[in-house]
């Protein structure tokens, strides 16, 4: 660079600078070395049975897993040893992809990939998938415009009523250890899922500052039952939801919720779905397809 500027270092100064560094310490071997990335890896929450399953126990992560598998991708690695705070925006799932698979990367960026890869948050996953298997058409895989509009309504139903019932059924960890532990898995609080904000615990006009939420459990359960009944009615005997010929994003969402409900500890929640044979059969069929798209990353510990 000095040549480009036309100014060069005077010789005594150059001799002086060449004495440094005086001593170079040897490289420190750390056991936590990141392995170079060879295939796309999805960071998810831990599955219910970590030894036997690759499907996550969290609805968000499972939704994206199903989306990836149903779009036709395969051989995606999964790992669940990353804490939630280490993810982008502190929300899992994240997709860790090698640079060469990024659709918008330029050639020299792809050439100098040293295994670090790029970490994508959840909302950038569809774009990445479009780069891999080709973009979906205008109708996003639905039969027609009216069905696409209807799919928005089903998404709202699932992410509202059904999600509220699921959140209610999860045991809230209120032990002392969970209060002082810095690593917490915070699910979406109930206030963001319900369309009308719930009242504070002591009433909105009490002199005490607003604390806690007074949740109308019966109303949520009633709406959940209606939602599952209408879901089952709409599915009927179709292969994919709303009569699509190939799986869509709505199918991924429905699968994620059904899978989580069927594995939840709450009997009333599970019973509503197990009563409906078509939903159970559909979920089982899609489950095998989703599971086949993923493989475990073996966790090696260097001695």
């Amino acid at each position: 660079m000095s040549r480009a500027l036309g100014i060069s270092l005077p010789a005594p100064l150059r001799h002086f600078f060449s004495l440094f560094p005086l001593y170079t310490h040897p490289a420190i071997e750390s056991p936590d070395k990141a392995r170079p990335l060879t295939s796309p890896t999805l960071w998810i929450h831990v599955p219910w049975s970590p030894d036997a399953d690759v499907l996550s126990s969290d609805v968000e992560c499972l939704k994206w897993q199903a989306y990836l598998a149903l779009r036709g991708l395969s051989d995606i690695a999964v790992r669940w040893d990353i804490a939630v705070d280490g993810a982008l925006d502190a929300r899992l799932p994240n997709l860790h992809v090698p640079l060469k698979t990024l659709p918008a990367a330029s050639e020299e960026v792809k050439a100098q990939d040293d295994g670090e890869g790029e970490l994508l948050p959840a909302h950038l996953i569809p774009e990445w998938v479009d780069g891999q298997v080709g973009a979906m058409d205008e109708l996003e895989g639905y039969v027609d415009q009216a069905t696409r509009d209807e799919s928005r309504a089903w998404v709202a139903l699932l992410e509202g009523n059904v999600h509220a019932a699921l959140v209610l059924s999860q045991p809230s960890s209120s032990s002392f250890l969970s209060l002082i532990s810095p690593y917490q898995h915070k699910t979406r609080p109930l206030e963001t899922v319900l369309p009308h904000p719930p009242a504070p615990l002591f009433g909105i006009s009490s002199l005490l500052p607003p604390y806690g939420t007074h949740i109308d459990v019966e109303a949520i359960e009633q709406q959940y039952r209606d939602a599952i009944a209408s879901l089952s009615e709409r599915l009927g005997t179709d292969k994919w939801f709303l009569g699509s010929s190939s799986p869509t994003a709505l199918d991924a969402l429905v699968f994620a919720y059904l899978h989580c409900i069927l594995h939840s500890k709450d009997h009333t929640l599970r019973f509503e779905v197990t009563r409906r044979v078509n939903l159970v059969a559909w979920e089982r069929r899609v489950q095998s397809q989703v599971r086949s798209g993923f493989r475990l990353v073996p966790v090696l510990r260097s001695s």
Partner: protein
Amino acid sequence: MSQANLSPLLGHRTVGLHIWPPHGDLLSFDAASVAALVYLQLTIPGQFSISHSANPDLSPSGQLPFLTHGLHHVSGFGSIVAYVRKLPNAHNLDIDLNSTQAAQSTARIAHVESAYGDLINHMLYSLQENWSAVTRPALVSMLPVPQCYYVPSRIRSSHKPRLEAAELWHVPEVELDEPEAPRTVLGRKKKRQPDIEPHKFKTALEREKVIEKARALFDVYDRLLGNTSFFMAAASPTTLDVIFAAHTHLLLSLKFPDPLVASVLTESYPRLVAHCDAVLSAALPDRSLLPSVVQNDWKSSLRYILPWPRAPTPRRASLSASSSPEAKKIEWRYKLWRWGFFGASVLAAAAYLHFATIVIVLQPRGSNRAADELPPAEVVEGDGDDAEEE
């Protein structure tokens, strides 16, 4: 249970709907309340009474609207619809829909309540000009004196989590100053600081996003409506029509200084505006057809300043005011027996305490005499006890 065997007390129960009070042209200040009102008017016209209350704490779940019928209570639009549908003389709005359409209707109602509800809450509570010019004065006018100072801001912050998650909460953490009139310093006008450019750019971007969301929603329902007067080509309003029209009514009837979403609706979607008018005129051809309004007693609102255990049903005293003389006589008899029972039990307890307990009288040891000179302890017992004490 046949109707003839019911006591006169139960036979006169009407359905009571408690909703937010009206404001100007609005039927009620909350979309779910308007929807519940219109729904009841379409299904059980003339068989219910309205009670305007701006105190959500009256409700068993803490939210308005809520419905009372005898000893039953339900809260929230979905539960009200489910309850009223089961009443024996209720007209079924969704009778013409086949099972697939009914399933779709459930999903669409959830979509309207969440997406359209978020947009309305954004207009009312998030946009600063609307909040200070429309929503806050309306809430303050509805609330009694102690509550009107702190409840409106509490209501506003209760909407924050949901709107933030939907990226519709654009309230700055620190209140920006209102633009002041140019001040005069030493006779000359002081120059006002110009607005910061990135701040204006950011708000413009946010507004664009809100308009996009509104357009996406209205496009969906415009296509669904088509050229018919009600959704899904029904001949009369269905539940989906009712909830959609309730939200549109709220958007159109208030005069917003910042009509972000309302202008999108009025400029580009005239069919949806016409739909709202059609539903409301089908339910209430004439405003005077609204059922009687029961006035609420504001003294009860003072009770809610302290956290009181919530009564799941309204107190019986308010209901007995409107019942027949025969019912009043039965009430009086019950009251007599109840107080007689309490009085008798108190008397019996006092008598037992007086006659049947052990009274120990202790004498002070005035001298060094032996213990046998002390009089024995007095024992007063009831029948059947054999114990002795010395």
